[in-house]
């Protein structure tokens, strides 16, 4: 496995793609409309598929091609489409009023997390032999941004999308950094993601039938 740096064309493509994935996470964090959340998530997933395809091309690994295709179809199309149909349209969701911090503060926090990710896992401190070490801090930052979205947003649908973004960050790390990551594990993670999405979808619609409007922000109830 050769090490990729920005100097090689493959490394440059991967790094650029990773930066775009990070930007789409930030864009989602800075948005207030449910429809936009899904658009940015879909965009991010397509970029993730590009990253997987790049890694597949560089490594000549057919398994990674399969993964790129799965990512494109499921995350780039099926999940956003299902969420748009079952959640955004059916529940008539427009503006997210369940954000606990202002958008500018959210973005400041998000940027701080990006800086933290870079300081905590700067490429030169990691072991050598990675496919593209410069992507490690970026994928960590995407995970943190997804977690931030889950924490500052109280609406169930927004939390669900935050989780999906987090998973994209993990996948970016798994796909591009370690092209040799066992395939069975990646497929398993994919399956979990899908099952989790379906269960959360069912719970959201189930709760929406009982409580409307939906925003669920209550912390633990103690009696």
């Amino acid at each position: 496995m050769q090490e990729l740096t920005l100097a090689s064309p493959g490394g440059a493509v991967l790094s650029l793609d990773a930066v775009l994935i990070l930007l789409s996470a930030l864009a989602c964090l800075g948005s207030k409309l449910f429809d936009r959340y899904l658009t940015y998530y879909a965009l991010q997933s397509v970029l993730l598929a590009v990253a997987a395809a790049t890694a597949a091309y560089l490594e000549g690994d057919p398994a990674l091609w399969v993964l790129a295709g799965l990512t494109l179809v499921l995350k780039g199309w099926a999940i956003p489409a299902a969420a748009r149909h079952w959640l955004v349209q059916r529940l008539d969701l427009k503006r997210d009023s369940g954000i606990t911090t202002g958008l500018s503060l959210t973005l400041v926090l998000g940027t701080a997390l990006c800086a933290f990710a870079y300081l905590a896992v700067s490429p030169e401190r990691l072991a050598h032999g990675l496919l593209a070490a410069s992507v490690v801090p970026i994928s960590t930052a995407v995970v943190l941004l997804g977690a931030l979205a889950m924490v500052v947003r109280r609406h169930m649908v927004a939390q669900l999308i935050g989780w999906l973004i987090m998973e994209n960050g993990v996948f970016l790390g798994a796909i591009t950094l370690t092209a040799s990551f066992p395939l069975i594990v990646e497929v398993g993670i994919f399956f979990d993601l899908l099952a989790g999405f379906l269960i959360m979808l069912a719970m959201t619609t189930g709760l929406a039938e009982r409580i409307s409007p939906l925003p669920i922000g209550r912390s633990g109830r103690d009696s």
Partner: protein
Amino acid sequence: MVWLPVLVAALPLVGSAFAALSGRTGWAAAATAASAAASLLLAVVVATVTITGAPLASAGAFVYVDGLGGFFLVTVAAVVLLASLGSASYLAVEERSGQLSVRRVRIYFGAFGLFAAAMLAAVETANLGLLFILVEAATLASVVLVPIEGRTEGLEAGWRYVIISSLGITVALVGALFLFYSASALPGSAEAHLAWPFLLAHAHQLAPTALRLGFLLGVVGYGTKVGLAPMHTWLPDAHAEAPAPASAMLSGALLNVGMYAIIRLLAIANRGLGSQYGGRTMLIFGFLSVLVGVVFMIRRRDFKRLFAYSSVEHMGIIAVGLGFGGVLGIYGALLHSLNHSLGKTILFLSGGSVALAYGTRRTDRLGGVVGAMPWTGALLLGAALAILGAPPFGLFISEFTIVRAGLAGDQPWLVALLLALLAVAFLAFIRTVGGMLLGAPRGVHREPYRGSREHLLAVGPSVVGLLALLGLGLWIPSWLNSLLAHSVALVR
């Protein structure tokens, strides 16, 4: 022999299959219980094999059972068996009273089997990626059980559970990725770099920064599943709202699976970073959890929530034992996880019978349960004393062992702190449960179970569990002792 552990994990799926294919809920319940019994029997065989010989392992360590895995396998399988028997009576009552439709009962048993299978499989793999997949699968299957009784509170609790657990466990996956990176400079296949035996054997050569990150992220991530404070916030809701036998599974089995993952990571950290680092991390999370658990146990009026906070406390005690470390600390922590599982299973199963009979979980509306339901009340009382660490039950021995481990260390004041917290827990718990069990009769009691078979199914598992706890307090079988010793050697 690798097929044997695979069979142990696959057996509970028989119950799921019955639930999916047949409309007779009684058959699904019977199949679930029978397969759980077979699963426990084979788990004991697997554990015995691991003491005597090398670990049962497949290529790439996707299937890998050593002493530690065998110990947790038996614990989980035992809880699954008790909970499946309890499910048979509990669900029969709820179906008869119209609380649950036949369809929901079928969903319950379908998810129950998947849940059990995923947990059993999780303690049988050494591949950290597969471990994540299985723990997440167990989470998702159990999420289906939480809101099954159809209350809005249940749905809310289920949502909080799935969203916080998924977040936490994704963090654990990032931790696994960092461990993978930390080994990437070493020779060997990609499967090996993600497998526990390889990482443990090469712990000294792992890149320290990535290893430290991987360990911390793993503890926070799986700690969310274990209910270590401050990641415990989902736990009381989910454990209180789930049907009682499902609560027993969540508290008695799933928490242990999370702890198992942490112990695996701790073993690598102990070797690679020195035991100071891992030990201190466990002590911080452990004491915080004991503190939070105990504080929230005070004046808790919903007894299932009380039991749930007690689980937070006990997971904290286990973490403290691991943090004290040494042979005694780890031995005590492992033994405590088995004891706590049995005790908490009895509490939830018997508590479930009380909730069915009185239609409430509020202790201020309950009184004199022992008089109205002698068996259930006595079992609850016994299990409450056991869970509080009163002799002669098993938890006394394991807590005592952990305390001795702490006294052997260089910070004996930590032991004093732990004992003080345990004393507060004792008072808070016994005050609430004592009033409900022994006080003046209160609340309208209506016998939920019909026929001797249902009665036996409702009481029997708890009787067996309590006898086992009593036995563990008086005598540790040599079989269990060597299993524990084997596990301790792996973790130190």
